[in-house]
């Protein structure tokens, strides 16, 4: 599934779509940024409730396909601007990390 296809699923909305055709290969869930930096893989959809600018740095370093902000978390305007400038895909949803993971697992079947 591509990042754009994910945003077309009900309940998901694009925050920043810098590279919408990027393919999601796997999923990583975590909020402790230093931990995520070591564990998240390239092309993962990374689900988190963190929303500061460091999230974008970790997403860039780990080269994740997109950041999915769970449980209604949104980006501040300046962080959103940075995501646009650095080309980081960000999607938001009210769903929990578990619900998002279930949807992604089903889509990958």
């Amino acid at each position, binding site marked *: 599934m591509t990042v754009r296809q994910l945003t077309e699923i009900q309940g998901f909305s694009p925050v920043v779509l810098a590279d919408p055709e990027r393919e999601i290969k796997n999923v990583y869930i975590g909020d402790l*940024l*230093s931990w995520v930096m070591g564990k998240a893989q390239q092309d993962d959809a990374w689900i988190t409730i963190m929303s500061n*600018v460091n999230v974008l*740095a*970790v997403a*860039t*370093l780990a080269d994740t396909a997109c950041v999915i902000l769970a449980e209604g978390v949104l980006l501040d305007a300046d962080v959103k601007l940075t995501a646009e400038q650095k080309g980081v895909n960000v999607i938001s949803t009210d769903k929990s990390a578990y619900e998002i993971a279930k949807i992604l697992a089903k889509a990958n079947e």
Partner: protein
Amino acid sequence: MKELSLNILDIAENSVKANATLTQIILKEDADTVTLSIIDDGKGMSEEILRGVVDPFYTTRTTRKVGLGLPLLKMAAEQTGGEMKISSKQATDESKEHGTSVTATFNKNHLDFTPLGDVASTIVTLIQGHPDTDFYFEHTYLQNSVNFDSREVRQVLGPEIPLNEYEILEWISNTLEEQYKNLYKV
């Protein structure tokens, strides 16, 4: 980071990379707060670099000389309602003073407070990796304290013995461990 001791290691490594001859790591703790200071006499940073140093993209976009250490430490402090301050001075023609000082305060009763972790191991790791530079370490809790000064060890052993010999590291580790046994006894 999972433990503040890992943040300390990261920041102190910056000090060593900045050619510090002495890096001071000071933890002051009471019932409610922890204040961490890392003070070095390294080459210091220009005002321009200093302004960008807590922006993770500033550090990742260039040659990554600084890393994510400062942005993550700042975040760890702020998520407990604390803060991080950093000041730095480069040597000039008028003044020979130079170095960088990072101070982070934490409310340790906040749910999002990152545990200190094994600070003693961090100190030993630093000495092991950088036996030719000096480290001063102090951890106080109310009236109690843990102290270590590599300059004192060097004075006793003589300058020709490197501090990263196994027996010396073992001794440093033991002396810290012994002192830590009494730190929280009030």
